[in-house]
């Protein structure tokens, strides 16, 4: 009897530690793959290490942001939100880690199934973006008060559905950039890209390509995230510090004591960038075993599948457009931030999003790469500018309508926002079982209506409709 209670308590304590539980799941996976014993030990330990790094990184990021939010609250009585996937995920994992891992595993199976039997042939190989979406699902369905098994099954099926269908939204434009049909893009910014491409098609002029414009190449040093995030954050700190000195000088002493606020602002910005770096190192460790296994299975069982991969595959084809898109989207996101500021005391008030440039960077570069083929210089400028605004507005809606927020952070991806807002509204009309059944029906739709065998994914109107 004593032994049994001891074992039960032992298991209970493992389950209470998401890091250990996920490590255990990784170990089972590696054993199933029949890896060597050293690989099993290395792989499962690295998964646990990755999760610990992610948690520590989150603490460091928040430490770098706290003075900024103190300044904003004490001076203007507002709070700024950081819509950064990495930070949001790192904080959510402590609470939703185990469910997230189970959702992810099921989602990959669902993606394989859909790619096998429907016309949506995409295999979503961007492991970290898959983690953001799985985490989002875990949070949404927990808010809707579903029991744990329904959170996992519902979340897994929905995430798998997302993985198979979302890449089709921009597949046509991606093919134009790469000049082949072999690669798709799997990224949680798909809705932003779709929007920017639509604007570029409307306003653009293909005659004049961005690649013929002279762009100072040394701007490329901003592609180093540690550098650009520090600089961007410091700029935000400087502006807020200046405003605080003008409007409420006493706040300075409250937040920074007697020390020089500009220097402390710089230190906090470096701290912020360091935290992001650590989170990403942790994520890299955590998904290290996952993606090769997933790719191996899909290569073997679904030979005609199209891999949906991370956005940098587009950049080497359009290096100039990437820089222009990034610069213009930065301006767009600052304008978007201005819009949230202006709306503060109106009935349209949205949460205030701090432009960390993190989002403008990835999304902006992709706007550039995709819009140039659709609308040349003019298309890139208009697409990236309005795209940049949307990268601020959609996360704000995710927070205010979808109620997805932890410690003033939320997801930055447009797809996360659309899914979150959709379920935020849906859960007002439906609750519990109704919601779960809706998810099952959604998952069955492409199986019932999209069953075409051995065909390259067609970018049809249905595909676009279905992905929304």
């Amino acid at each position, binding site marked *: 009897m004593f032994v049994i209670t001891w074992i039960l308590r032992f298991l209970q304590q493992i389950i209470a530690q998401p890091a250990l539980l996920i490590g255990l799941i990784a170990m089972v996976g590696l054993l199933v793959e029949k890896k060597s014993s050293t690989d099993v030990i290395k792989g499962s330990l690295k998964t646990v290490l990755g999760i610990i790094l992610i948690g520590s990184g989150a603490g460091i990021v928040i430490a770098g942001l706290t003075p900024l939010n103190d300044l904003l609250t004490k001076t203007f009585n507002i709070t700024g939100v950081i819509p950064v996937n990495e930070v949001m995920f790192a904080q959510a994992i402590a609470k939703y880690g185990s469910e997230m891992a189970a959702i992810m595993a099921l989602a990959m199976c669902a993606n394989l199934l859909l790619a096998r039997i429907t016309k949506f042939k995409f295999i979503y190989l961007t492991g970290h973006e898959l983690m953001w979406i799985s985490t989002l699902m875990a949070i949404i369905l927990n808010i809707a008060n579903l029991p744990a098994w329904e959170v996992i099954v519902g979340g897994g099926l929905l995430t798998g559905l997302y993985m198979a269908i979302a890449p089709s939204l921009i597949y046509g434009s991606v093919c134009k950039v790469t000049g082949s049909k072999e690669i798709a893009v799997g990224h949680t910014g798909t809705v932003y890209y779709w929007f920017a491409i639509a604007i570029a098609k409307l306003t653009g002029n293909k005659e004049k390509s961005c690649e013929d414009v002279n762009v100072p190449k040394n701007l*490329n040093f901003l592609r180093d*995230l540690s550098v650009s995030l520090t600089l961007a954050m410091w700029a935000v700190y400087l502006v807020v510090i200046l405003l605080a000195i003008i409007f409420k000088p006493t706040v300075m002493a409250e937040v920074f004591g007697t020390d020089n606020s500009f220097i402390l602002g710089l230190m906090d910005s470096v701290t912020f960038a360091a935290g992001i770096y650590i989170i*990403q190192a942790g994520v890299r460790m955590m*998904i290290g075993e996952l993606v090769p296994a997933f790719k191996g299975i899909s290569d073997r069982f679904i030979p005609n599948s199209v891999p949906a991969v*991370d956005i940098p595959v587009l950049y080497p084809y359009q290096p100039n457009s990437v820089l222009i898109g990034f610069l213009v989207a930065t301006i767009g996101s600052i304008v978007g931030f201005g819009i949230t500021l202006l709306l503060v005391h109106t009935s349209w008030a949205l949460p205030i999003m701090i432009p960390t440039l993190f989002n403008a960077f990835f999304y902006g570069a992709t706007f550039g790469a995709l819009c140039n083929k659709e609308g040349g210089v003019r298309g890139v400028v208009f697409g990236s500018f309005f795209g940049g605004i949307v990268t601020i507005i959609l996360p704000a809606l995710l927070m205010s309508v979808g109620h997805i927020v932890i410690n003033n952070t939320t997801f930055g991806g447009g797809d996360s926002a659309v899914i979150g807002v959709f379920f935020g509204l849906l859960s007002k009309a439906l609750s519990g079982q109704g919601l779960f059944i809706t998810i099952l029906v959604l998952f069955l739709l492409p199986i019932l209506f999209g069953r075409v065998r051995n065909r390259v994914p067609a970018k049809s109107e249905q595909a676009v409709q279905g992905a929304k």
Partner: protein
Amino acid sequence: MSGLGSSFLMEMNVKKVLAKLGLNDVEVEHSTISDVMPGSTDLIVCSADIAEECASAGGVIPLVNLLSGDELEQKLRKYLEERQK
């Protein structure tokens, strides 16, 4: 760019090509531009648009099609031949 997605798939490709060339004792890792510094590695396989940023570490193989095994194999063979001279 964050060293998480596309570079990971490139790593898998590099490993595949190395195995094909019979080079099994080469260590391959994927990472972000922030990790590029002199002496950090012998050779960097990267996207063509950031080749200059990666040059400080040593050898660079810039790819235009990041996922093309053929392009990689061709350029890697050339690099190895030149190194042997």
